[in-house]
């Protein structure tokens, strides 16, 4: 029997003794690459009970146990390093981007709320919110600093708001500028996700839209794992609480998870949302599979979904 170990190819007799052994050189990098080949494609596995340590010493690969283990550790560390380095998939960038987007949203909402209250104290008549307000304050500062031609010039002069001095103005203006830059960063990341989704998962992008598609990839932990999910899982992904409540037998099954954000479901009548969710989820799972394994845009997926959507809507009339 011929067996392959990390340090040598060994020919074993029928009585279990070593007939022939050709040890590798003690080059850690080469040994590590050899090891990785076996890990991905196990073949000629040594039988159970085979003792590599004694064989390595008899073979002349290592002088003693100490040397054997030292080489083994170096080789395994080198192999693990290589494997870790090759383990990052391109969808990781999208996952991080979409998660960064969520973090920005959370932070921006908090800051926007603060700015609204803070600046509202000073100039309640401005009547703006979030991004508009942030831009307005970052550009103009306090209400007494508004230029003559501003549409708010008159309202500002008769405002009932609290007086603020130049020092307050500097601080609130800088605060608004930070918030504005956060909103700008959000737009940049959104564009980045859009662009990358078109390259990485064109079909998913077409069916789900860039944002929802990226979110699905992020929740599944990667395009590969999304493509291996049954469409029923995709359908309820993100509705974990409701799903587990259902599995414990205490509720009806959830109709949709994160895919609720798709206009097809969100804008449909509640009565047909379940049907829509099923149709959409099955298209999504097919789209993600095509993306994961071929990467070519296939317009037939979207067309099929559109036909299905039409028939659901007609059936409901």
């Amino acid at each position, binding site marked *: 029997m011929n*067996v*392959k*170990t*990390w340090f040598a190819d060994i020919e074993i007799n029928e009585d279990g003794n070593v007939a022939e052994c050709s040890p590798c050189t003690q080059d850690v990098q080469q040994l590590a690459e050899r*090891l990785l080949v*076996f*890990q*991905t494609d*196990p073949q000629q*596995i*040594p039988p*159970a*009970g*085979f*003792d*590599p*340590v004694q064989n390595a010493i008899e073979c002349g690969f290592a002088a003693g146990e100490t040397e054997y*283990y*030292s080489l*083994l*550790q170096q080789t*395994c*560390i080198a*192999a*693990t*390093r290589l*494997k*870790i380095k090759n*383990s990052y998939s391109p969808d990781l960038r999208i996952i991080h981007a979409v998660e960064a987007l969520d973090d920005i949203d959370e932070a921006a909402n908090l800051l926007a709320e603060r700015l609204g209250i803070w600046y509202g104290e000073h100039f309640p008549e401005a009547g703006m919110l979030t991004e508009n307000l942030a831009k307005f304050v970052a550009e103009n500062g306090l209400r007494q600093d508004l230029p003559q031609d501003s549409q708010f010039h008159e309202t500002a002069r008769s405002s009932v708001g609290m007086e603020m001095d130049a020092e307050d103005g500097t601080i609130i203006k800088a605060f608004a500028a930070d918030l504005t830059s956060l909103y700008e960063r959000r737009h940049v990341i959104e564009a980045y996700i859009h662009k990358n989704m078109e390259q990485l998962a064109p079909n998913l992008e077409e069916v789900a839209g860039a944002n929802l598609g990226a979110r699905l990839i992020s929740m599944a932990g990667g395009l590969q794992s999304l493509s291996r999910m049954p469409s029923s899982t995709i359908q309820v992904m993100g509705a974990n609480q409701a799903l*587990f409540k259902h*599995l*414990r037998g205490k509720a009806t099954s959830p109709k949709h998870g994160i895919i609720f954000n798709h206009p097809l479901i969100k804008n449909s009548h509640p009565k047909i949302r379940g049907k829509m969710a099923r149709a959409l989820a099955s298209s999504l799972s097919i789209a993600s599979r095509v993306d994961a394994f071929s990467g070519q845009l296939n317009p037939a997926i979207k067309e099929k979904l559109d036909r299905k959507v039409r028939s659901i809507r007609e059936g409901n009339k």
Partner: protein
Amino acid sequence: MKAKTFHENIFTLQQGKKRFLATRNLSPGLEVYGERLVQVEQTEYRVWEPKRSKLAAMLLKKLPSPFTNTSKVLYLGSATGTTVSHVSDIVQQGVVYAVEFSPRTMRDMLPICEERPNIIPLLADASKPGSYANVVEPVDVVFQDVAQPDQASIALSNVQHFLKPGGYLLMSIKARSVDSTAKPDTVFKQQLKTLLEQDNSKLELVKKQKLAPLHIDHLGVVARKTE
């Protein structure tokens, strides 16, 4: 503070009324995951937190320790290497083959391997023993702490390939990872059945013990390979 031997190379430290589990530090001066280092009579010990380690919890729950100073150990599911580092302390003259599937957690474990000469890292799938069979030698102990629905059969296939006759399997069954909806007791029964009652299993149960309240819904199992 006083150090007492609890099992071979495993100690308890007594401080007033408090008692800590600890191991002798193999790389003195270095801590691995923020644990306390304690100096007692020229020996440095690392405090072993049972709430963070299933193995420590199993020992405190009076399951026997099969480890000796020279044990060879196959550790399945090493994660970031906190427990592995203690096992490496225990088997000072032995070897720990640490198998972990996730590259992300393995990245955190690599620095520990570089500090300790007796840990061999293997980034591989524990359910495919063939993928590391050309590295791992026959071992005295198989320890398993993986979050997989087919935990018992993974343990069994590794035991069949790597465990020496008379060697021990230690595992912690995670009921919630096997089946999150079934009752833990049902899951334990079914997993033990897979482990012990198959024709080719060759395992006999030594002791089992629930790890609550240290680890909820976990069952610690020690089994011995008969032939």
